[in-house]
């Protein structure tokens, strides 16, 4: 066993050297290593993705161009019921921790698949976020998934899959490196549950729901008052990989304390067609040490005189966001769409010469604007009850932006190692902070090489 571990490390090192010499050589070779009994299998793979996009807005300047979106190096080791997976990204010139986990897989007496998984990986919530980029049918995930989803976290899950049911649930830490500015980490629990009434050679359908609860404990210390101020930041770029500016869809939720997420999803797949969609509703409850904050402001000539008066001038309200998408695909050329029952996901296309047409509509709503509130751009501030005044009560409105996006794309598979994806996306934004950025047009293309 040891020699295979040593060998796998050597292969990784060799791969690293290959990366450095990438311009002059071919891409890193796909590597499989097996022992003679075939109970240890080591794989090594890479994926290189480059994107180009032209972006245009009514008002703000956008950063069109091309970039190396990802350069992934991944390795796995399977030993009997054990499976280790490590995935690291060096795209955009920086190291990013991707999946890193160990999974123990087994079957029960009825031959239903079960697994325990520990490490750093996608939380069991969104269908889209649990799909590898290499298996995607669009250049990017929908904005709603990127904004409201929970990409990866450090935790442990238990998964159960039988012919009709998929259930995956786990518990996760708030911060994978425990390097928050202040506060002990919070915790999240959640799960994704599917019913799969049909899954045969020609037709698959599943419907499902996801739930997630997170307790937010980390934040910044207000040193003057020794108060921990929690904050939830929700943001995403427009649906492209080149301009990652996330200002247009961006919300800070101060004093966030509990985050509830509810998701619903559905998928239908035939040989040549798929349709799938998700909807997510997010509710964020807040908690604030009012007494401490009230006492901290006492002493000035114009201090709030009672806790109640301070609270009425500084109200606190929960925040709600939601969003969803629907995706359609049609395989013009190629074998057929396939379904990954173990993960409850649609697989990507990799047949040589395959061509598919895809379309998506997505909706992301990070605007939680209270009835009657008005926004004054020159102050970047909401005024409650429609009255612009000098000293208004604090508004509880949050305007992170509402985005509607429609994408048309075509994907072509050169061979199982390479494919090209092209897409046009139109987006419409409603964000009071960007009153003149209403319409966005994005033309983009991707080359992806996987080995």
């Amino acid at each position: 066993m040891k020699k295979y571990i040593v060998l796998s490390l050597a292969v990784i090192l060799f791969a690293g050297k290959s990366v450095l010499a990438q311009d002059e050589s071919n891409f890193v070779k796909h590597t499989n290593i097996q022992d003679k009994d075939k109970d240890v299998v080591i794989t090594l793979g890479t994926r290189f993705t480059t994107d180009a996009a032209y972006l245009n807005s009514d008002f703000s300047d956008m950063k069109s161009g091309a970039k190396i979106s990802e350069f992934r190096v991944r390795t796995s080791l399977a030993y009997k019921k054990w499976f280790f997976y490590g995935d690291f990204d060096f795209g955009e010139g920086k190291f990013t921790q991707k999946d890193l986990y160990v999974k123990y897989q087994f079957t029960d007496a009825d031959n239903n698949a079960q697994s325990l998984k520990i490490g750093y990986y996608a939380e069991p919530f969104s269908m889209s976020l649990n799909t590898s980029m290499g298996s995607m049918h669009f250049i990017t995930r929908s904005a709603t998934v990127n904004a409201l989803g929970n990409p990866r976290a450090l935790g442990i899950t238990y998964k159960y899959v039988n012919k009709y049911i998929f259930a995956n649930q786990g518990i996760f830490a708030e911060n994978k490196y425990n390097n928050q500015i202040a506060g002990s980490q919070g915790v999240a629990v959640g799960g994704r549950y599917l019913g799969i009434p049909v899954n045969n050679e020609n037709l698959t359908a599943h419907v499902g729901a996801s739930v997630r609860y997170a307790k937010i404990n980390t934040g910044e210390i207000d040193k003057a008052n020794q108060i921990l101020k929690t904050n939830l930041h929700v943001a995403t770029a427009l649906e492209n990989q080149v301009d990652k500016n996330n200002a247009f869809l961006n919300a800070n939720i101060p004093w966030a304390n509990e985050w509830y997420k509810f998701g619903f999803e559905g998928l239908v797949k035939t040989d040549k067609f798929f349709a799938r969609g998700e909807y997510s509703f997010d509710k964020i409850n807040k908690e604030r040490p009012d007494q401490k904050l009230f006492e901290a402001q006492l002493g000035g000539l114009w201090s709030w005189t009672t806790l109640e008066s301070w609270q009425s001038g500084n109200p606190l309200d929960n925040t709600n966001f939601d969003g969803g998408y629907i995706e359609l695909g049609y395989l013009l050329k190629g074998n057929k769409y396939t379904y990954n029952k173990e993960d409850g996901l649609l697989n990507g296309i990799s047949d040589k010469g395959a061509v598919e047409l895809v379309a998506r509509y997505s909706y992301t709503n990070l605007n939680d604007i209270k009835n009657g509130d008005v926004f004054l751009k020159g102050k970047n501030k909401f005024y409650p009850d429609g009255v612009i005044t000098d000293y208004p009560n604090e508004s509880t409105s949050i305007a992170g932006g509402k985005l509607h996006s429609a994408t048309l794309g075509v994907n072509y598979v050169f061979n199982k190692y390479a494919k090209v994806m092209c897409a046009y996306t139109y987006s419409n934004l409603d964000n009071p902070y960007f009153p003149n950025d209403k319409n966005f047009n994005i033309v983009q293309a991707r080359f992806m090489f996987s080995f």
Partner: protein
Amino acid sequence: MSRKLYKLSLLFLAIVLISSCKREEVNNYNVDVDKVEIKQLSPEMLKVRDYVPANAVIAHRGSTFWTPEETEAAYRWGREIGADYLEADLQVSKDGVVLALHDDNLKRTTNIENVYGENVPATRKAYYLGLGYAEADADKMVEADKKNFIPNLPSYYTYEELMKLDAGTWFNQTSIEQARPQYAAQHQYISTLEDLVMYARGKRLKRDGNGERVFTKAKTGKKVKSLSGEADLVQYTFAYENDAQDSGNRPGIYIEFKEPWLNPAGFEQMVFDELSRLDMNIITKPAPANEQFYVNGKVNVGNTNGKVILQTFSLQSLGKIKEVFKGQVPMCFLLWKGNGATDISDDSPEGYASFINLGIDNLAHIIGPSITGAPNNYPELLTPWQAHLIRKAKMAIHPYSFDTQDQMKKYFGDYNYGNAIADLTKPPYADAMFTNRSEMTLQYYIDKGVRNANAPKTVKNPNQLLKELGY
């Protein structure tokens, strides 16, 4: 088919790459300014806007450079130098007298620390007795005043108490080179709105043998509620006399409303009524339509429908002024950049436009942006693109405050040397100037040849004028 698709995908990628390499204009305010939504004054509002003469000179607080601000000396000088408007800030005394006073803390421009310290004036009981209260009631009222007392805030003092303060001597101590003994020797009072109007009409205070102003006061039976609580509204009757030095100029007044919390509820209506009482409200008593801004080389703005211009920084006052004056009196929305309650904090084209639109929604006719430059170094809120936006809204531009000829040249467009900036509106970027140096602004306009043909053609020497005025 695969070869075709391969070629097509390469072509598509090439198109994307080429178009992504196209040089996109980095956000440029000179260009963006025409993309933002901007409202425009209605024809009715344009008519009111034009009540104000072009290239008007607004004597900021009368004069802050030559005299103690907002005093009799300041306003007499402003009138006689030939300014079109005498500018003032409005506050209110505890007993309901509308003041022409800038600071909400009396320490800078008066000797209040020596006169009252931080105590309720010792004369307060006598004041109540003078209004006819019994001694026991007067004692109770004084005790109540003591409990709820904020020192140095004007609305905590009756006007009779404010008249005890010296608003002139401080100037001699802070403006050494402009100091004049008479500013201390002759009692300079905190002015009232009525004083301001009277100075603009060629009057001066009538004084008794001790040099104190002559007045009587009477309880009206009405109440006024300000920060200091509810108090009797007192009617002061002030005596004025013709100013021997009056040369016939009749400037208008340019009065500023502060944030409403500083003043009694209904303060805007109070000012409306006071202007009516003083025959300065063109809504209740319009001026003849054919009245000219200048007559026989004298300023005559004070006799026209442009006799009063209202101004405010306050977002809240803006709405209250709209309710009371209904856009029928010229109004200026003042802009200041910062993070305060009334400040514009986002001065991008979108943010700036939102303030202009707010002004138009609230029936303002004029935007009053701050300008940069020594000695005040205010925030710059009148770049060419910002002026362009105001022009697009068809509003007038009254920037503040001018202290140097360099500033006047800059904002009048001399330094553009006739060159256009992108597609922006050409200068001048100012239709009037709030100035601390009225004599310089007048001379600048005269030299440029932009003053009305009937306006004064010469400017008196400011020092000589002060001597003639008795200072």
